[in-house]
């Protein structure tokens, strides 16, 4: 009896969701529109819609209209797997744009590999993903840290303290900080990897003071980061110790943090809304028209925008949306005039060569760009991952040690 009832539910679900027309090109999207991660997911999804609209307005892909089949992963990992399979099995998508956390990417990457569908992951992350079907448009930790550490040591001094979340993003970032510090002749004087549940930073702040650094690399995520920055500033340490980050601002933390605590914080990322370029002005105008100006655009949104445009360019170049041809076109050294400068898709590593900006928080919950490192390479990914020579590799490389 229970299963018959279930069958009814199934049919209901089926009839509601299978109504897309067939002449269009379908692309899939899985982002966290609800739950704790929707701080990023909503913007990623908005950027996708905006990109698709702009592509369709310009004539679509190979003359065909692009249609989005979107899913809300509800900030739950299991939903990613489920919807990825659904998209593959049911929707017949030509490409997939999905994911925020590394675990979400790792959960669905094998699915698209097996189905041979190009998959775009658009978020800054710890780096190292290497898979024929996977393309990464966010910046990797080494890409950001290589320029940031250089800048930080020069501007603050050689004593570095690492404060990062105790999971892959944090520990791998920690590895790169160690490596770059060594190259720069600087010293990591202390490090603290924090549990995700930490809200009280007093112990960390003591440890920082005990090791007397010139600069703290602060990498906690989301609300945890703002909590730390508030407590750090309130302890009166902000003036004597520099704070730099590769993810501060990625979720608009600069809006949450009080101006007093946020002013002067330095962040290195692939995009800030204050980037000055025609492409960015155009992009922001379109964004504001569609979504208003309430929340600043985050880097992840621009990464999605770039991903969709790169895919469309590749499909147009290939003259088809067939996976093998599109992947070949994507591997042809494609470039795109993105809001964050010219980006180039590296054929071997499937990562983006792009500008990295260093920005400083101002007194009005915004960022002021203080340095631009043009055309920064994803060095580590290019080194370990060459999908032209080794197309069968499917790995998530992590630096040793």
């Amino acid at each position: 009896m229970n299963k018959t009832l279930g069958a009814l539910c199934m049919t209901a679900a089926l009839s509601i969701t299978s109504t897309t027309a067939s002449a269009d090109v379908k692309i899939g999207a899985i982002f966290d529109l609800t739950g704790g991660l929707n701080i990023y997911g909503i913007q990623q999804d908005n950027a996708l819609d905006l990109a698709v609209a702009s592509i369709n307005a310009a004539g679509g892909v190979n003359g065909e209209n692009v249609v989005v089949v979107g899913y809300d992963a509800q900030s739950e990992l299991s939903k990613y797997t489920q919807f990825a399979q659904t998209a593959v099995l049911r929707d017949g998508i030509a490409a997939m744009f999905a994911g925020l956390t590394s675990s979400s990417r790792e959960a669905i990457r094998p699915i698209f590999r097996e189905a041979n569908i190009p998959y775009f992951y658009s978020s800054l992350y710890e780096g190292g993903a290497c898979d024929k079907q996977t393309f990464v448009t966010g910046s990797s930790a080494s890409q950001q840290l290589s320029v940031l550490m250089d800048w930080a040591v020069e501007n603050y001094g050689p004593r570095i303290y690492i404060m990062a979340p105790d999971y892959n993003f944090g520990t791998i970032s920690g590895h790169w900080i160690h490596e770059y510090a060594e190259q720069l002749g600087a010293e990591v004087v202390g490090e603290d990897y924090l549990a995700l549940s930490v809200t009280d930073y007093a112990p960390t702040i003591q440890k920082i003071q005990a090791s007397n650094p010139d600069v703290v690399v602060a990498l906690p995520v989301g609300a945890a980061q703002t909590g730390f920055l508030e407590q750090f500033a309130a302890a009166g340490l902000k003036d004597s110790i520099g704070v730099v980050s590769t993810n501060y601002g990625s979720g608009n933390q600069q809006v949450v943090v009080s101006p007093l605590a946020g002013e002067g914080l330095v962040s290195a990322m692939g995009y800030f809304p204050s980037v000055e370029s025609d492409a960015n002005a155009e992009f922001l105008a379109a964004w504001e028209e569609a979504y208003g100006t309430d929340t600043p655009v985050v880097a992840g949104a621009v990464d999605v925008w770039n991903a969709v445009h790169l895919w469309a360019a590749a499909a147009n170049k290939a003259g088809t949306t067939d996976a093998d041809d599109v992947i070949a076109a994507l591997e042809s050294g494609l470039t795109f005039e993105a809001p964050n400068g010219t980006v180039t898709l590296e054929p071997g590593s499937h990562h983006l060569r792009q500008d990295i900006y260093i920005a400083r928080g101002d007194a009005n919950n915004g960022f002021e760009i203080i340095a631009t490192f043009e055309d920064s390479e994803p060095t580590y990914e290019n080194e370990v991952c060459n999908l032209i020579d080794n197309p069968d590799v499917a790995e998530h490389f992590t630096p040793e040690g």
Partner: protein
Amino acid sequence: MELDFLATVLLSSLSSASILLIATLGLAVVYGLMGVINLAHGEFLMVGAYSALTATQIGLPYPLAIPIAVAMTMLIGAIVELLIIRKLYGRLFDTMLATWGLGMVFNQLAVLIFGTVSPGIGMPQWNFQIGDYSLAVYPIAMIFVAAVMLAFVYFLMTHTVYGMKARASIQEPQMAQAIGIDSSRVNTMTFAIGSGLAGFAGAILLPIIPATPSMGLFFAVKGFLTVVVAGPVALTGSAITALGLGGGASVTASFMTSVIGDVFFFLMTAFLLWLYPLGISAKWRRKL
């Protein structure tokens, strides 16, 4: 180990424990006086934080925003008691599940109303120096706040008509009924007070923990463990447990890592429950 570092660790661990106690006290009152575990406690804390935040955004000074947060959460608490808790009285686990559902609803409503990014209100930029170490005043001031809160609840329970009725209802339910105490009204009041304490916690901690829809989660989890380990003598028990578990975890985190601090918290909880299967205060003679 230098003395100034030790003093700093001690002081900030005490502050950690106090923050935990502030966040837990409302839960303890409701559990101690009604035998109800309110799994939406963390969300009440969140409602308090957002109420205070909204009040400051429309121009009220922060100290005035706190009573507004308390009033708001008390009101919601009273409504929740009348509509839900009352119907489930005596069904501990059903109440837990219902309040968990309520927490989910609150959480998602907060996302809808406030989005996931709201500006913080900033922490007062005062600090002081112990040897080589500089500490923010506000978190340390929480030790004082926790003490005042504890004294307030103690006073409420021992020196007010409501408090006497509430204690009578829990200690001698039949007798209380017989002398005409309307226990359901007392319960509404108790739940409202518990919620109000959560709202107060959310508001007073707002400078330390920025308002997000899921801000209450980790506090709530540690709060439940604290209250349950404390056992039937909710007030004193929770104070001691918060001090031991929260302070212990913070000291552990200071000397090792925060992950070990968390593991310490959970393992100590398990160990204490194994030693005291009904909570540490199960055999105490005092009642508050």
